[in-house]
């Protein structure tokens, strides 16, 4: 990496962005105006709560005493109080027409004050009327007691109540979270616009080709872009703070009415503010850049960025729900920043938390840059041609499926969500509902994942090409995996006795009284649909995009995780390897479906008839080793015939 090259590239990026009026407005005006705007709106709402009319009107349905009238007249110089006499029904009508904010109905010695809790315009007026009645009552009582020659004031002082406000936190608990959320929003939107400027628009405007003809290394190019996004978003964060403090300073009167105390700014807290801005910018720059740099055009970049931004904003709201800062959370990106920020505003700062958050974020950012640099392939990015890179041709193979590593991750994520969804349904829903929902859901996932990788469905789900003479080897492979799988489990349960906990919940949820129904729900439907997904889509696409090893391992791993418990998961992983191999060799989805069905059928029958399988103790290793040898023999035979 040559520093002068990076500096020249930086100069170019900065000149180009800062002279662009639209980007400039987003970067300067948004951070500067956000807080004044927010606090302005808050204070407008607030003043409507505290605004008192010149003439406060309220209705009564009884004759007011002269004494009370005098009390009202002397109550305050700032406003007049007008009493409206009418019947109860008329008063009610005036109240609903909003002519009066409150009316008082006398019932014997009871004075009932009627008011609307939700009306924001009458709150201040009503509070005054309420206190008039309360204070009048005090005066009335004092007079009555004086007549009985009891000193009420002296009596009251024997049980006195006083209020004194003391704040543990400098601001209300909600305010710091709102500030941190706004800060994250501003930094992310600036990052968003700059990241698109330096990557996607460069591509769309055609300047990237010019840039690539210069003697620049990939790492220099990406570093300069990263630094540009980082510096500009840090600047936006800094401006946000300046604007926040100015607003707090100038609007301190309004804010103190809101219950927000003025911020005490000391050196330590200022440092924390700066650190949190830098951390947020570091992460965002890397994250957004890694998306935009691979996007073909603006629309694609925006489509992938919006969900990301939403997710991060949600995460930054976590402290609102009262999550406390722990050392483990210091390692989680974004969560640590928003926790750090929150604690800094309430001036409870743990230095080790700051250190861990800071270091881990820097490590994540460096990792992000490294990953981007590694994945960034000039040709794919520049020409959108899906040109085969020379690396793929070095292996002497041409791949027919091209999708980005991000798509691979997305598919894995979809499967994980699916499995979580099923594990939830297994426990909470009825069996018949499950029967209808499960195949449909998997089918949907098959469709979505297949379209994502642009899979040739016809070719992937083909059922021809099944040769009977291969059947023997497949049966052998299945028997071997059955033995290996079961004995591995046997061993593992001995080592980790807690492993079977989750499994028992499943097993009990899946016990059906009707054998036919159990075979359909437990054995047949999963066999068909899971094979379509894990072998037909996942194995197939990863095999074609990467290679056989990646395909078989990824599909088996996901198949294992999909079961959401250790017992089934470990077995499914081993079984998944075998199924993928069978699919690969037979080139027909029918083979893995058949063996998957047989396997599930066996399990169903065993649990239905409560058969105890005899497992000879002490021979575990022998069986596993024997199984593996047999397996290799079967695979050897299979490969030979090819």
């Amino acid at each position, binding site marked *: 990496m040559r520093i002068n090259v990076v500096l020249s590239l930086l100069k170019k990026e900065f000149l180009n962005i800062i002279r662009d009026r639209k980007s400039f407005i987003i970067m300067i005006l948004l951070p500067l105006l956000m807080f004044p705007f927010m606090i302005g709106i808050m204070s407008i709402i607030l003043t409507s709560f505290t605004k008192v009319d010149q003439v406060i009107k309220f209705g009564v349905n009884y004759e007011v005493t002269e004494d009370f009238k005098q009390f009202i007249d002397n109550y305050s110089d700032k406003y007049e109080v007008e009493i409206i006499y009418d019947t109860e029904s008329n008063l009610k009508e005036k109240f609903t027409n909003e002519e009066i904010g409150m009316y008082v109905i006398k019932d014997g010695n009871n004075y009932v004050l009627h008011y609307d809790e939700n009306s924001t315009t009458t709150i201040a007026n009503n509070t005054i009327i309420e206190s008039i009645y309360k204070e009048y009552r005090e005066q009335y009582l004092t007079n009555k007691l004086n007549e009985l020659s009891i000193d009420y004031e002296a009596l009251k002082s024997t049980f006195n109540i006083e209020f004194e406000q003391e704040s543990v936190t400098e601001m209300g608990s909600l305010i710091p979270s709102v500030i941190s959320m706004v800060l994250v929003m501003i930094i992310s939107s600036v990052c968003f616009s700059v990241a698109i400027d330096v990557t996607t628009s460069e591509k769309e405007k055609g300047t990237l*080709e010019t840039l690539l003809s210069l003697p620049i290394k990939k790492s220099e190019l990406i570093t300069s872009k990263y630094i540009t996004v980082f510096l500009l978003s840090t600047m936006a964060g800094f401006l946000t703070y300046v604007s926040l403090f100015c607003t707090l300073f100038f609007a301190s009167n309004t804010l103190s009415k809101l219950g927000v105390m003025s911020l005490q700014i000391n050196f330590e807290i200022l440092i924390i503010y700066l650190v949190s801005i830098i951390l947020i910018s570091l992460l965002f720059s890397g994250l957004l850049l890694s998306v935009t740099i691979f996007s073909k055009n603006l629309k694609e970049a925006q489509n992938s960025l919006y969900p990301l931004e939403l997710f991060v904003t949600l995460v930054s709201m976590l402290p609102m729900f009262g999550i406390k800062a722990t050392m483990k959370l210091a390692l989680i990106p974004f969560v640590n920043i928003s926790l750090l920020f929150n604690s800094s505003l309430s001036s409870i700062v743990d230095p080790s938390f700051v250190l861990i958050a800071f270091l881990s974020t820097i490590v994540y950012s460096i990792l992000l840059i490294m990953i981007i640099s590694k994945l960034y392939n000039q040709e794919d990015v520049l020409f959108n041609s899906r040109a085969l890179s020379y690396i793929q041709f070095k292996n002497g193979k041409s791949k027919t499926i091209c999708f980005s590593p991000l798509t691979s991750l997305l598919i894995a994520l979809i499967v994980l969500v699916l499995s979580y969804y099923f594990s939830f349904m297994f426990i909470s829903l009825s069996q018949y509902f499950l029967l209808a929902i499960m195949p449909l859901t998997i089918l949907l996932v098959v469709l979505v994942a297949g379209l994502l990788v642009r899979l040739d469905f016809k070719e992937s789900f083909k059922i021809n090409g099944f040769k009977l003479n291969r059947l023997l080897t497949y049966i052998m492979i299945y028997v071997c995996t059955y033995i290996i799988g079961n004995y591995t489990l046997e061993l593992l349960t001995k080592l980790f006795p807690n492993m079977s906990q989750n499994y028992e919940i499943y097993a009990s949820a899946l016990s059906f009284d009707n054998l036919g129904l159990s075979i359909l729900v437990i054995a047949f439907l999963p066999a068909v649909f899971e094979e379509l997904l894990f072998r037909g889509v996942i194995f197939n696409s990863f095999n074609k995009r990467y290679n056989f090893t990646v395909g078989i391992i990824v599909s088996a791993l996901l198949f294992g995780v999909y079961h959401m418990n250790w017992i089934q998961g470990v077995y499914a992983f081993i079984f998944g390897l075998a199924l993928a191999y069978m699919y690969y060799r037979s080139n027909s989805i029918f083979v893995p479906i058949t063996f998957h069905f047989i396997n599930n059928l066996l399990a169903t029958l065993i649990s239905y008839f409560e058969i105890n399988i005899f497992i000879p103790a002490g021979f575990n290793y022998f069986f596993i080793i024997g199984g593996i040898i047999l397996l290799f023999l079967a695979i050897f035979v299979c490969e030979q015939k090819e």
Partner: protein
Amino acid sequence: MIEIKNVSKKFIKNTGKKEKEFYAVNDVSFKVADGKIFGVLGQNGAGKTTLLRMISGIMEPTKGKVLIDGLNYQKDAEKIKSKIAFLSGNTKLYENITPKELLEIFGSIYGIDKNTLTKRIKEVISLLKMEEFQDNKIGNLSTGQVQRTNIARCFVHDPQYYIFDEATAGLDVMSSQIIIDFIKEARKRGKTIIYSTHYMEEAENICDQVIFINHGKLIMEDSPKNILKITKKTNLRDAFFEIIGGTDEN
């Protein structure tokens, strides 16, 4: 000296449902001697752009080698790129930067030291008559002015090799003449120019050596004079069709 050895470039084309592989450039070899204007001729889509992109290091060949002064892109990409200037019809410049700033930035990326660069920029600006617009934003310049700026940025590091890909396409007579003049001027100073175009007349006048490319394959390499002699035609356009017709029949 530029040497192209058995260079191929494979792409995947998405035709409806199925993806097809095809060669944009298929097993092409030639040498370009120093101080010559070398024309790459062919129809649209023949593979000229892909070939020139591989020579200038923007694309990597699927097979074969590109050697420039004996260096290859796998090892010395930065060294080679400093000796080359690439200009295509699609090449765009940054709209918010002025020509002078652009030259400064590009010059320092090429590793020219500051004093030399300031001198060099002055020279380039006066040579290409860019004084009156050197401090305007590129976005506000006319097409001809942009073209001159584009040439200036190719010229600033005084490269040995110029690679011009359809540089005159879509330009009016005056603007394209700026480029043609520049190319002739560069040869006088001993520079090597690889120049692709589909305007055969243009090439006929200025090229020392031309190759014809059709469907990614090199079908003829010779000087324009010899080609006219062999095909017994009066201009390169007719000669080209003659040769294509001939190869298609074979």
